[in-house]
């Protein structure tokens, strides 16, 4: 803990107490966002004095009871302006929003940024470096589609979706009711009721080729469908129909182990079970690893891989 951290907490603590009335320490813990031990330590820092009589700070009298505290301050009655770090953190979030939100919302995001910049504490000639951090969730998929889906989700409007899976030659058209937008495993998804299938389906953003908002509205289910899916730990990879067991060679196993959070086998390889949802996607996914992966089960996936490789070999020999 640095003195700066402590100063930041103290400067946000005093305005919360500034009315001179007793405040419950427990309530302050919530308001200031720190734990009890740290709060007491901060209070101790500004009240236990060794250079002047106890309890004396010019214009700042602090009184502590068993469960309450009151302060009679003349200074620090308002919070301090935003610090550079606080501005940069919010600017990073606003920049992320800007890339995800509909164009119509950009004005509000832009002016919010302007308002924040006008409440920052800085010397008149000081430059603020706000470009030390950058964040983006995913570059896969058309963010304009994401914006339209989000807008439809907010307005509770149905959308007509053109959707194409990895192996499909043509996109299919579906009418969906977007229940939520989720980011998982490096990809954006829309969780939606598919009118044609009459069930909740998960749609990957990078497979969406068109989003058209319809006039017809929908009523969101009383149960939070997205929460339920997350609680159940369902992978955002479609509905698993089986299990795929594969072994990655020691040449690539370290990367997979890191991604999956699994320990390596003794020989440096890694055996993993994945939910098997879409066999066509699975074949393509495994092919990217070339001879560094082997399918332990099911055997039909291995057979499809061999068939595909035979086709590629014959094309190359033409």
């Amino acid at each position, binding site marked *: 803990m640095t003195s700066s951290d402590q100063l930041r907490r103290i400067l946000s603590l005093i305005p919360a107490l500034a009315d001179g009335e007793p405040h419950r320490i427990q309530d302050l813990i919530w308001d200031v966002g720190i734990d009890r031990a740290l709060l007491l330590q901060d209070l101790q820092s500004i009240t236990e004095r060794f250079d002047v009589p106890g309890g004396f700070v010019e214009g700042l009298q602090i009184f502590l009871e068993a469960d309450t505290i009151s302060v009679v301050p003349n200074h620090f009655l308002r919070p301090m302006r*935003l610090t550079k770090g606080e501005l940069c*953190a919010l600017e990073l979030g606003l920049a992320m929003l800007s890339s995800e939100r509909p164009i119509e919302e950009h004005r509000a995001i832009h002016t919010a940024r302007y308002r924040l910049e006008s409440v920052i504490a800085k010397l008149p000639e000081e430059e603020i470096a706000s470009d030390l951090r950058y964040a983006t969730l995913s570059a896969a998929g058309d963010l304009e589609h994401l914006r339209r889906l989000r807008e439809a989700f907010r307005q509770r409007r149905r959308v007509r979706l053109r959707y194409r*899976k990895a192996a499909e030659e043509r996109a299919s058209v579906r009418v969906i009711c977007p229940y939520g937008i989720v980011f998982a495993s490096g990809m954006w998804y829309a969780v939606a009721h598919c009118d044609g299938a009459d069930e909740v389906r998960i749609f990957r953003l990078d497979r969406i080729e068109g989003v058209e908002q319809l006039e017809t509205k929908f009523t969101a289910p009383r149960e939070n469908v997205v929460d339920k899916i997350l609680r159940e730990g369902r992978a955002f990879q479609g509905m698993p129909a089986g299990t795929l067991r594969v072994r990655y060679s020691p040449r690539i196993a370290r990367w997979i182990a890191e991604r999956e959070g699994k320990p390596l086998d003794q020989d440096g390889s890694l055996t993993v079970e994945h939910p098997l949802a879409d066999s066509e996607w699975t074949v393509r996914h495994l092919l990217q690893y070339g001879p560094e992966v082997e399918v332990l089960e099911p055997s039909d996936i291995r057979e499809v891989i061999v068939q595909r490789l035979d086709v590629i070999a014959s094309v190359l020999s033409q």
Partner: protein
Amino acid sequence: MTHGIATRASPARDDYMPSQKIQRWIDLLAALLKRRFPASLEELTREVPGYAITVSKTALRRTFERDKDELRAFGIPIETVTGPDGDTAGYRLQPGHFYLPYLTLRSATGTTKPKKIDQYGYKTLSTLTFEPDELNAVVAAAGRVRQLGDPLLAEHADSALRKLAADLPVDAAAPPDNELVPPRAKPSPELLATLGQALQNRKRVTFAYHGMGDGVETRRTVEPFGMFFLNQHWYLAARAPGEDTVKNYRVNRITEPTVNSSRPGTHDYQIPGGFDLRTHARSRHAWELGTGDAIDARMHFRANSGAASAALRLGEPIPGHPQDRRFRVRRTDAFARWLLSFAGDIVPVSPRSLVDEFRGLVRETLAHHSVPPSLRPSASPPVRP
């Protein structure tokens, strides 16, 4: 019973020092904020007990300068005011530059009214009006930042919201309309905080880095240029002292970071003006990476599957050949593996060396998958020819 805080008779030295500094800072800020005009160090010394007890004028000046610099680094705009002769006339902290302006929120029924303070220093504060959608954006932005897993960023975002909440109904702002499922491999909050501090203060940092290529852990000393969150991972963009190349270090592969503690308050390095973190952090395919020369590779798209259509957009069109695209490739091995993932929808046309490499990969992969695991002589790793 209400009571003032008791003074401890004999504080432990470790506890004593930080408290003394915080008390000195608070006293200094109070002494500056109550004044309409700049204060000299002599005047401040009379009101800051921590200065009055220093043993010499030199020590007093040193302590004051350090306090001023650290408070400025924290963001408190203490001004040094000079007289007509150019000498320092005093120090000033204007309440309007320190305190948050009064904030109001416009709504259909009118504008909220913050509680104003009828005292010197607070009367002059300006008023700033937020629109509801602007406040919603700020609250959503803080939520986004919180989801990135960096505790320092989250703390700053939360701290900012608490300040705004003094006047604005932050809790009533629109809740986020999406959810993030956190990645499995997350760096430790302490590690992110340490690297963030090094970056903020432009200090060199030394750490152990687990290289994935060879599985070996090595010590690195680098100059941080930025941190970025991409594909659900935090990366440190940094340069080794004396080198030109800015490399990316995945933060969850970093351990034992130590920030250079010598010459505190000074920068160890400068980030070149031309460095743009956003451009540097752009998501790239593995075959675009590397320092070698890029080759022009021509691909033929045999099918229009969803995956192939997405890849088609990555390449450069070739006039008169709508099903062909040109790619700039630095790592042909990574490119061949990427091509293989399209299961024959895309095949290489040129150069010959790339076609041969792809053909060899197909042959090797076919031989590998043609033998069921149960018939393999052992589970030893495959050896590439």
